[in-house]
């Protein structure tokens, strides 16, 4: 049990910190700017290239592909140190975290040569085209059709919840090539050019007012058979490679809502019996949230320890989002109750702490859903971590077109 770096870790951390101090564009843009901020795109690309050239982008990937040729623990340390600097928004996370690794694992040699290095350098951005309106939690229910036409495939259909589709160059698309076989067997994966005609991107207006996601429509989109990633009918297996990477990359993050801010708020507000910060009900909640938030933090340290020891992290990393999303919603609601009538004001100029808790309240529902709902994540913990049996499945041994959809 030691929080201190090993000498090897300490040396790497020192090197990274020196490099960041010399190179990080610390005065530019806020890290919280979000993917959709077009102003920062050039900055983002420049920062990514700088990291790639120094071996700090894709630290664990082979140098031959533009990576750093390093270890997982180095990647974690770089992330910790980078977080201390103001760096531009990162529109590359989905491509480098999920899509390109899939191409590297499953794709053909030509695709690897073509795509990996430009992605590492930040020259090309990728998005992931799996979710569909009728699918929801069930990515394997994709209905977007790809029909063979000579040497090409013709694609029609719709994807949804696509982060970054509007600024992406390429997309990894899961399509149904055979509706007459069971659900998981009739899918095929393709890469597509997001700028091609036949691709239309429409932003989704969220309840918070932001548009972090898109709908993407395909109308007679024509792709070459060489754009196939993996064999025909093997799409689900390819998707599992991508999703496995997603689960490792989806983090927690409480946004503007954490116990320090709540303590600060409570130090300024009166309850019926005195100052908020002296209120036992609030104090007990803060204690409960503190042990959850710290528990998650220490759990990532356990994961990092496993990486440092060259082991595979245990299943404990799966609990992050399910804890942090509800924590964020409960804490925001409690903060507003403390503000009492005033809590309804969301204008940053008038609301306490610039309306951070009001923003958190409006963002929390999305966090409880995006990247796997609370319910799906508990299923995953129960089945994959604890080994409990699957629920009864009515969609396994029938042709996809015969699965009940209620329509």
């Amino acid at each position, binding site marked *: 049990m030691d929080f201190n770096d090993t000498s090897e870790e300490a040396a790497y951390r020192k090197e990274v910190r020196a490099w960041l101090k010399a190179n990080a564009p610390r005065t530019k843009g806020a890290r919280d700017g979000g993917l959709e901020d077009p102003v920062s795109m050039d900055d983002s690309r420049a920062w990514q290239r700088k990291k790639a050239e120094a071996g700090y982008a894709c630290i664990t990937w082979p140098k031959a592909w533009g990576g750093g040729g390093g270890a997982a623990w180095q990647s974690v340390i770089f992330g910790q140190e980078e977080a201390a600097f103001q760096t531009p928004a990162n529109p590359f996370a989905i491509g480098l975290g999920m899509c390109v690794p899939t191409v590297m694992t499953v794709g053909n040699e030509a695709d690897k040569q073509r795509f990996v290095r430009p992605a590492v350098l930040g020259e090309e951005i990728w998005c992931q085209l799996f979710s569909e309106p009728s699918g929801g939690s069930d990515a394997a229910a994709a209905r977007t059709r790809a029909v063979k036409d000579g040497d090409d495939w013709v694609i029609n259909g719709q994807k949804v919840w696509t982060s970054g589709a509007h600024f992406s160059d390429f997309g990894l698309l899961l399509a149904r090539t055979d509706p007459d076989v069971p659900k998981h067997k009739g899918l095929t994966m393709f890469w597509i050019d997001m700028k091609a005609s036949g691709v239309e991107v429409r932003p989704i207006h969220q309840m918070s007012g932001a548009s972090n996601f898109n709908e993407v429509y395909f109308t007679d989109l024509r792709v070459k058979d060489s754009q196939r990633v993996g064999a025909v009918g093997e799409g689900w297996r390819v998707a599992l490679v991508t999703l496995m990477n997603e689960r490792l990359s989806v983090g927690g993050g409480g946004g503007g809502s954490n116990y320090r801010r709540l303590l600060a708020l409570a130090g300024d507000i009166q309850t*019926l019996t005195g100052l908020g910060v002296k209120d036992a*009900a609030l104090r007990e909640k803060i204690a409960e949230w503190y042990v959850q938030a710290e528990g998650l933090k220490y759990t990532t340290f356990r994961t990092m320890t496993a990486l440092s020891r060259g082991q595979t992290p245990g299943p404990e990393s799966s609990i992050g989002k399910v804890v942090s999303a509800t924590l964020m919603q409960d804490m925001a609601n409690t903060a507003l109750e*403390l*503000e*009492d009538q005033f809590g309804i004001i*969301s*204008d940053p100029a008038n609301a306490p702490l610039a309306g951070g808790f009001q923003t958190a309240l409006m963002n929390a529902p999305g966090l409880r*859903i995006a990247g796997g709902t609370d319910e799906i994540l508990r299923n995953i913990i129960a089945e994959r971590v604890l080994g409990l049996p699957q*629920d009864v*499945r009515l969609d396994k041994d029938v042709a996809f077109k015969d699965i009940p959809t209620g329509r």
Partner: protein
Amino acid sequence: MDFDFSDDQKFLKTEARKFLDARCGVAVVRGVLDDGAKAYDAELWKAVAGQGWLGVNIPEAHGGLGLGGVELCAIAEELGRALAPIPFASTVYFVAEALMLAGSQAQKAKWLPKIAAGEVIGCFATVERPGVLTEAQVQAKVEGGKLTGVKLPVTDGDIADLAVVLAKQAGRGSLYLVELAGPGVAREVLTTLDPTRSAARLVFTGATAEPLGDPGEGMSLAEAILDRAAVMLAFEQVGGADRALEMAKEYAMQRYAFGRPIGSYQAIKHKLADIYIKNELARSNAYYGAWALGAGGSQLPLAAAAARVAACEAFWFAAKENLQTHGGMGFTWDVDCHLYYRRAQQLGLVAGGAKAWKERLVSQLERRNAA
């Protein structure tokens, strides 16, 4: 024992639902949500006045229907269900009730008929800063009949004609009537979590203020008004929570995942059962509050607190878990879940948050046990 709406009250309620289904569809609510310049739906407001609802609990002598508080609760439940974007609560639960509780004959005669006719919009201006309403918080003051100070947030303060204001005279909290069209009043619209209900900052610089009730009694009058409003708001919350449960149920029946309706999975079933349980507990507590409203006895403060605590919990839970049941669609702008999520916060905060009402509840409980 007759612990339910009477047949007449049920008829009134059914008619109210029909009326609001026709006149206050979600398009009307979204009309206010999407138009930043629109503080409320003026057409619906007129129509509601035409139904006589504004005067349901106002005596016939003052132009109302003189029916009673329980009838007002029946209508409140339907308004809450429909998310009616009108200044009903401010005008009726707060200002009309304040006038009936503390107004002089002249004040009642002057204002109640106008309220009943829909000619006057009211607002209740008490708080000035984050935290619960306490006498110590009040900085606004009246000297020589002139009011100076700042109030925010004031629900419907941007559109109201008449404000009931809590201010200090000679250091003691008192209530005042202030006509907002007069000099010495500035208003600024506030951005809030629920744009379907407006709110403002009111700045008074020597506005004419007329005492409402005895000077120095402002705080206890405000609490008595809040008790009454809490019961009526509880019915709005129960109405909203019921509709949120219906939405969740409808979606869970028609949305399929893995080859069957999501409503056949226990995670969704038990979530909806929990919403149902909270809604029924809230309804029962609200009924008791409605009875206490009419009985007019010493039970009201405890009954009102219980009604409010149960209703805040039920609507918030129903609103957030209805949204969760809708999955990705739930947090889009175009699906209506967030309208209920927003209104749950608005209703949960407008008469003070549940936290403060829990403290009021237990204080009342101790008082009752000591008696």
